[in-house]
């Protein structure tokens, strides 16, 4: 953010109406900019002086004599009595009552609409839209409503009290659910950056290819017009789910998603290009023996999670080769046998996965 962008935001900052994401950006800018800090001080002083203005100002002369004079010619309003009305007035009264009833029904409908849960949304750039309305500065995204950005618009959504989602240009996203245990968006197209600070499995993003399940993380999720896309995790873990299959993607890793297929096999961004190409062929292009061989040849100890995800996706012969390669890259934990893995015993698969995830966690905390 530059100083010009900061200037208008300082007002919202002091009024307490700035979205958290922008508030942080403003504070970062203020730390390094003396001019803007002085500007903030001037604004703060003005607001303090304004708050100290007297609430009362007495007119220089008593206005009562003039008011009393005008009151003499005024009648006070009175509540009508039905019983004192002539029939013609009574008919008019019923017409009025009917109109009032219609208005009340309209208000009821409006109130019902407005009582739907909502998340606050703020404009970051351009002209984002909530429903058919342009988002001028801040607004509400109610359950069922779409937020749309064009090629020069960006917006930020506050995910209840657990985080926020930045919506990038050319995106369409809908608020599906805002319950304590189910904060859910649907990304039809475009890209988002999500930052969530909450226990796992409270925040979900639906896409045409898979459901992204927050496991305590920050991530970028992009979907193109065909529904294909990719998830890139920058902190923590995210699960991708489709039709009972779940893959877990740690920080530093990417997972491609495709409609009708779901998530591919997650891989670390620093994996070799050959491994990544081979995975894409295997996951989405019916890649055969060559792709599988390339994966085995290119895998490093850091790619064990990638190999683990392939275990249930392969036949028994290929699974045996996978086991051998994995065991060579790092000895399996105690309690795991080749036979058990070949049979896809859930307890063994889970144990091995937890062990691999533990090593990844250690690398996140103590990177080498």
């Amino acid at each position, binding site marked *: 953010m530059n100083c010009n962008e900061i200037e*208008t935001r300082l*007002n*919202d900052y002091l*009024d*307490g*109406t*700035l*979205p958290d994401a922008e508030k942080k950006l403003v504070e970062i800018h203020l730390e390094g900019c003396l001019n803007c800090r002085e500007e903030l001080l*001037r*604004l703060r002083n*003005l*607001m303090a*002086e*304004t*708050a100290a*203005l*007297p*609430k*009362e*100002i*007495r*007119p*220089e*002369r008593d*206005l*009562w004599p*003039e*008011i*009393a004079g*005008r*009151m003499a010619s*005024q*009648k*006070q*309003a*009175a*509540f009508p009595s039905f019983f004192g009305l002539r029939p013609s007035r009574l008919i008019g009264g019923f017409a009025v009552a009917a109109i009032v009833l219609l208005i009340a029904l309209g208000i009821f409908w409006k109130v019902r609409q407005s009582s739907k849960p909502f998340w*606050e949304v*703020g404009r970051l750039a351009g002209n984002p839209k909530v429903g058919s309305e342009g988002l*001028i*500065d*801040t607004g509400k995204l109610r359950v069922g409503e779409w937020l749309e950005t064009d090629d020069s618009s960006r917006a930020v959504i*506050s995910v209840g009290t657990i985080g926020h989602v930045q919506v990038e240009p050319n995106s369409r996203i809908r608020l599906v659910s805002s319950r304590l245990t189910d904060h859910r968006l649907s990304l039809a197209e475009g890209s988002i950056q999500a930052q969530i600070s909450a226990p796992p499995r409270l925040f979900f993003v639906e896409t045409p290819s898979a459901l992204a399940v927050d496991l305590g993380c920050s991530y970028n999720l992009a979907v193109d017009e065909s529904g294909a896309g990719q998830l890139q995790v920058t902190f923590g873990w995210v699960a991708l789910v489709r039709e009972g299959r779940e893959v877990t993607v740690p920080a530093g890793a990417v997972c491609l998603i495709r409609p009708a297929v779901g998530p591919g096999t997650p891989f670390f961004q620093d994996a070799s290009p050959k491994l990544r190409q081979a995975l894409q062929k295997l996951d989405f292009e019916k890649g055969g023996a060559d792709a599988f061989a390339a994966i085995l040849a290119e895998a490093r100890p850091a790619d064990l999670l990638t190999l683990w995800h392939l275990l249930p996706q392969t036949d028994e012969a290929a699974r045996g080769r996978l086991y051998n390669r994995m065991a060579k890259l790092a000895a399996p934990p105690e309690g795991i046998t080749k036979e058990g893995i070949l049979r896809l015993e859930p307890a063994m698969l889970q144990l091995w996965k937890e062990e691999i995830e533990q090593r990844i966690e250690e690398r996140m905390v103590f990177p080498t």
Partner: protein
Amino acid sequence: MSAEPACTEIILEPEQQAPGYEWELVRRAQKGDRAAFEEIYRQNVGRVYAICLRIAAEAGKAKELTQDVFVLAWEKLPTFRGESAFFSWLHRLTVNVVLMEQRSRKRRAEKEMVTIEPEFFERPDPAVLPGTGLDLEKAISQLPHQARTIFVLHDIEGYQHNEIAGMLKLSVGTCKAQLFRARKLLKEVLK
């Protein structure tokens, strides 16, 4: 996101902090007791006049508006049901009277001065240019009228942007932009 004070959170003056006494005055005035209404006037004229003066920015006009407010309050008093504090009701009535007058003044001006560019009405008086050392109250009085109205309603009277936008038939964004403009002009003047 929103941490703005609600307009109903009005701090009552000590003499208004006796709801029983105030309600008794209101009840008597509703029955036509002019002495009780005079007491209501004396208790509230300072607050009402302050709003009228700050928005109208003209002492003569503010006095007229204050009279209008109390005459209208007398007329409408029987419709006050005590669902809110009396001053909240009177406060809203005051703002409505001032805004109605502004709208009719603007319509008259548009009829009489159709050839003048609209910005003419928004241009601040040359006297508010920076460095003139005017105090805050005077600087507010010389803001462009829409920016002034919004500044007074938001920063002094505690209304929220959505309420002001509704009253002035503006978008919330325009309302905010005008408030920021007012603050910017005031900062310049008070430098």
